[in-house]
């Protein structure tokens, strides 16, 4: 090495040399300026502060904002570039290099390599994700994290990709964003955004439609409010489910249903199970007779019970809970003769009693989903509330007056009644706390400043914007990027921690198929072990490789998994740079050249 050949300079000689070359040449003056320790201190401090601020930004807003304003912002990239220049220049200032500079140079070049690797990775590589279903179609495109707007040109019908992310651009009425429509003079103007667009059903008046109502359901206890529209179509009424809690229907007329208390007859034996006729109504009350036939006991389904000496209540009724038990007849020694019940003797050999029970109908908790039925009448909306097909409440509801439903503290209010209505769907920002999809509000604007109607453009859906006779279809959402192979999920396993439902790993077995050659290859992606394509050693080292890591799972569907995809051509430089930094610092701190 040339550095070892030259006689080592003493500190004084070096200082003099540097002073001399700075005076002699502009180049060296610039190198020493750019490589100055003051600049390094300034850059270290500002980058550290910016990063710290960004994390608080992320905590109070979101990662996307922190990225847009700091980490991926042009000024931050410029700062990092300046840092690279500073790092490079500082190694030049040490020229001529000596053995003692080894660690210093390795470390500083290591950082430069790492940063170059990061630039290559972000420019030429990509990150995305793919959701796979076991046994589903092979997937050949990866969803990236970049939002794009696909615009169908009215001129040739071709699709154009326009990079646009409403969550970053944050269009508003004060700061609208405009986008060109290829092959047209029209422009798309975005003037509002939301991250929780929802589809809402609205009751709208329509000439040929049937009667329609919109009903508001509220519960104070659970803090929920829900408005549902209903219309009667020519083919009948409309039934909806309310959170799986109840069924709600709007019908041309209310169906007939039994109401009021149920009545049943039971033949009760002291020594055998009671005989209850099939198909009769049930109260759920159980009646028992003591061994000697002297005591009758009745118990309601909610545990209330009453006991009476048989003689006192014979031929009479007694109360148990809300039910009434009428003791019709008694046989001390029951026997059926010619189909007629008789007593063989007066001895209580086989005591039996016939009872008639009247009380609230029994409900089967498993299938007791309640129902609200409504129908239009001349005097208002008639409604009936039933459980197990038996009505427990009915009445006429007027617009704006709430009525209780008898399901916890739920109430219903008829908000609106239209004699001729239809249900229209409209996208719009949902209320606070509601899950929705991101999107923006847009309209078309002609060069003369006239505009078309505004529409909410939802992510993941096709929206048609209109200006006079021109219709332009736009699709907004995450960009899909084709890859040179397809991937299919063969198997997905979620082993659990012993004795619990907590996952201990996620194991996806996938099959890659080369789009050109049709060759297939199996891969396994589990925690900390990604699956790779092509996955050969060269690809793994250079990063010219698609890596699939476990990202998400769906507890409701164990045949579905989402994999994070990384293609990073900067990997080799990042890796070498990282190693150089660690080795360099170690040499700098702990390996000192022997003093001659």
């Amino acid at each position, binding site marked *: 090495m040339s550095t070892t050949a030259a006689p080592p300079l003493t500190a004084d000689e070096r200082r003099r040399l540097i002073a001399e070359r700075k005076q002699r040449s502009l180049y060296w003056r610039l190198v020493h300026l750019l490589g100055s320790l003051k600049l390094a201190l300034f850059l*270290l401090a500002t980058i550290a502060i910016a990063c710290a601020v960004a994390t608080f930004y992320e905590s109070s807003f979101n*990662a996307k904002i922190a990225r847009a304003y700091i980490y991926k912002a042009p000024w931050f990239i410029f700062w990092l570039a300046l840092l690279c220049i500073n790092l490079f220049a500082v190694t030049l200032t040490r020229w001529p290099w000596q053995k003692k500079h080894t660690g210093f140079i390795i470390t500083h070049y290591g950082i430069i390599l790492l940063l170059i690797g990061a630039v290559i990775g972000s420019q030429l590589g990509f990150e995305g994700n793919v959701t796979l279903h076991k046994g589903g179609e092979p997937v050949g495109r990866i969803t990236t994290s970049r939002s794009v707007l696909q615009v169908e040109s009215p001129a040739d019908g071709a699709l154009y990709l326009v990079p646009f992310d409403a969550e970053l651009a944050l269009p508003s009425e004060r700061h609208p964003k405009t986008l060109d429509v290829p092959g047209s003079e029209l422009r798309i103007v975005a003037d509002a955004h939301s991250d929780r667009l929802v589809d809402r059903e609205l009751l709208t008046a329509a000439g040929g439609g049937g009667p329609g109502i919109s009903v508001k359901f509220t519960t104070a206890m659970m803090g929920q409010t829900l408005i549902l529209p209903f219309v009667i179509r020519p083919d009948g009424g409309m039934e909806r489910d309310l959170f799986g809690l109840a069924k709600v229907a709007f019908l041309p007329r209310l169906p007939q249903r039994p109401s009021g208390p149920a009545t049943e007859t039971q033949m009760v034996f002291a020594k055998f199970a009671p005989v209850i006729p099939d198909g009769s109504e049930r109260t759920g009350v159980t009646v028992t007779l003591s061994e000697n036939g002297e005591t009758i006991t009745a118990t309601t389904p909610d545990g209330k019970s009453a006991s009476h000496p048989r003689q006192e209540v014979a031929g009479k009724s007694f109360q148990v809970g809300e039910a009434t038990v009428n003791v019709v007849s008694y046989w001390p020694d029951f026997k059926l003769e010619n189909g007629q019940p008789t007593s063989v003797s007066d001895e209580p050999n086989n005591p039996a009693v016939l009872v008639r029970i009247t009380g609230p109908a029994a409900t089967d908790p498993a299938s007791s989903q309640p129902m609200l039925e409504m129908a239009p009448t001349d005097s208002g909306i008639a409604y009936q509330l039933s459980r197990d097909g038996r009505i427990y409440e009915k009445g006429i509801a007027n617009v704006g007056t709430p009525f209780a439903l008898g399901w916890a503290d739920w109430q219903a209010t008829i908000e609106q009644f239209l004699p001729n209505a239809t249900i229209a769907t409209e996208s719009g920002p949902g209320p606070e*706390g509601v899950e929705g999809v991101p999107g923006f509000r847009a309209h078309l604007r002609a060069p003369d400043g006239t505009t078309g109607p505004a529409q909410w453009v939802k992510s993941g859906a096709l929206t048609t914007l209109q200006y006079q006779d021109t219709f332009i279809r736009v699709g907004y959402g995450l960009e899909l990027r084709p890859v040179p192979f397809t991937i299919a999920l063969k198997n997905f396993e979620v082993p659990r921690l012993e004795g619990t439902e907590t*996952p201990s790993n996620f194991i996806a077995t996938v099959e890659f198929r080369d789009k050109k050659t049709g060759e297939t290859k199996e891969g396994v992606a589990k925690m*900390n072990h*990604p699956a790779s394509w092509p996955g050969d050693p060269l690809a793994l080292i250079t990063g010219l490789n698609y890596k699939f890591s476990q990202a998400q799972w769906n507890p409701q569907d164990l045949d579905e998994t989402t994999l994070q995809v990384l293609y990073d051509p900067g990997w080799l430089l990042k890796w070498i740079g*990282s190693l150089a930094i660690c080795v360099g*610092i170690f040499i700098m701190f702990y390996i000192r050249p022997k003093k001659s």
Partner: protein
Amino acid sequence: MRAVCLLLFIMVSTAFALDTTPLETLPVQEGGRKKPYRVFADESLLSMAGRSSVPIGDEKRSAMEVITGLWLEPEAWISQPLILINNLQLKEAAGLDASRKLFSHEELVQNPQFVALLQKTQAAKRAVKDGKLTGMDKQVEEVGMRLAEFEQLFRGDLFRVVANPDGEGAPWFTVRPDDPTFVALSTAWKENDEAAFAKAAAEFRDALARQAPEMQPPAWKLDLENSYQQAHPFRWAWILYLLGGITLAVTSLRGRKVGYVLGWIFAGAGFLCQLAGFVCRVIIAGRPPVSNMYESVIWVAFGAVFFALIFEAIYRSRFFLLGATFAAVIPLILADTQPLALDSSIQPLVPVLQSNFWLATHVLIITLSYAAFLLALGVAHIVLGKVILGRKPAAALYNYIYRTLQVGVLLLAIGTILGAVWANYSWGRFWDWDPKETWALVALLVYLFILHGRIAGAWAGFGLAIGAVLAFQTIIMAWYGVNFVLGVGLHSYGFGSGGFGYAITFVVVELLFTAAAIVRHLAGKKSAAPKSAAQAVS
């Protein structure tokens, strides 16, 4: 000394009438692993009452006594104060006695205001998107979880002691209530019959051990865990470190030699206690001991003493030992006395951490860098203390700080980069500005700033000490702040709550201490300036 007395007091106070020792090593399956019944009892009472024993009447009852009572005679405990409510606002809102901390299940569920609060919180939980509650709702939720723990114990659901022959991962069963050995055990308990209880306990154990013998964990492992649970090695470590630190401080003027030897002995003994504790935890859990805040706090204290012992062996200066022992005592006392904020129970890892290689390299190295910075902080405190007391610190101290910072910077750089490489495998990207990543970088940049400033001659002595203290605040942020304050990002398995007051107090005290030292330093400089201008430069 007070600590030792306290310890003896705790040990003595755990005596009780019936001898539950035969049950201690009974394996129980809970929280994704099998643990000895004694550990199960300690952890259950801790999560319900926030302490390891509870006062019932005039007596203190141990976890074994309470939990075994709940198992064998549940109805006797429904009206006993076992459920912790710390929050004063909550107690006020529910109309509970503000001076009490423990309440019985009965009085809580029969308190309409409290039940209304619970219902309101449940509604709030459904309403928020990610299920994360804040403020009062969070407090109520915590109490609700303690209530649920009580109810599960009361119903016997948690006592899964009957092995399942279906395989390693299969859930174990609870004992059938009519199982004759169990009936005998609970009868003996209710009748407080010592002899019958001992006999029934032995029979009960044997009957359970015969159940799927191949699924029973090895007895030595259960014994080891019980011994670890009772030995409190990390408590002994801080007591020994404290003794070592005090010895070194007291003998700094007179009896230096004897003091130094004693300091070495105390610090070494404390270090061995910690080492033994870590070995136990590693054997029990089968992984490196750095998976949660409790473990990392203890590990950092361990690392600080470890580096101090090495440096002390090289430099023989006593400052490393002095700085490290005091610096290690604080985190160890926190870990020992704040079981609700720092959970000491051994739990299985979340899937992403289940890689012993990466856990051992990335996490151990990065926390060791924290340890080195903690040691630098300890030595820097000696400098600042001397300055505040108006003494001139020895120049060697500044070199010691620099040497320690070097260790920290090297380890932090390696640890951060290893983290990026691990993230490349497990999350599928090398670096993506996750808050934990970013704060590790911020801390590294700040320490690099200090080291580069030293080369520039901006600060070499006193400034370096100030820097070591101030820069440690970024470590607090990277270590504690990201998980407990910011609460966003991918390192969510480490997120928690609590201890915020302690962290803020620490930071404020450090800043005040630094400010005081700077004021004294400047004052000293002014008065010294006429005499010798060169002195100030050092």
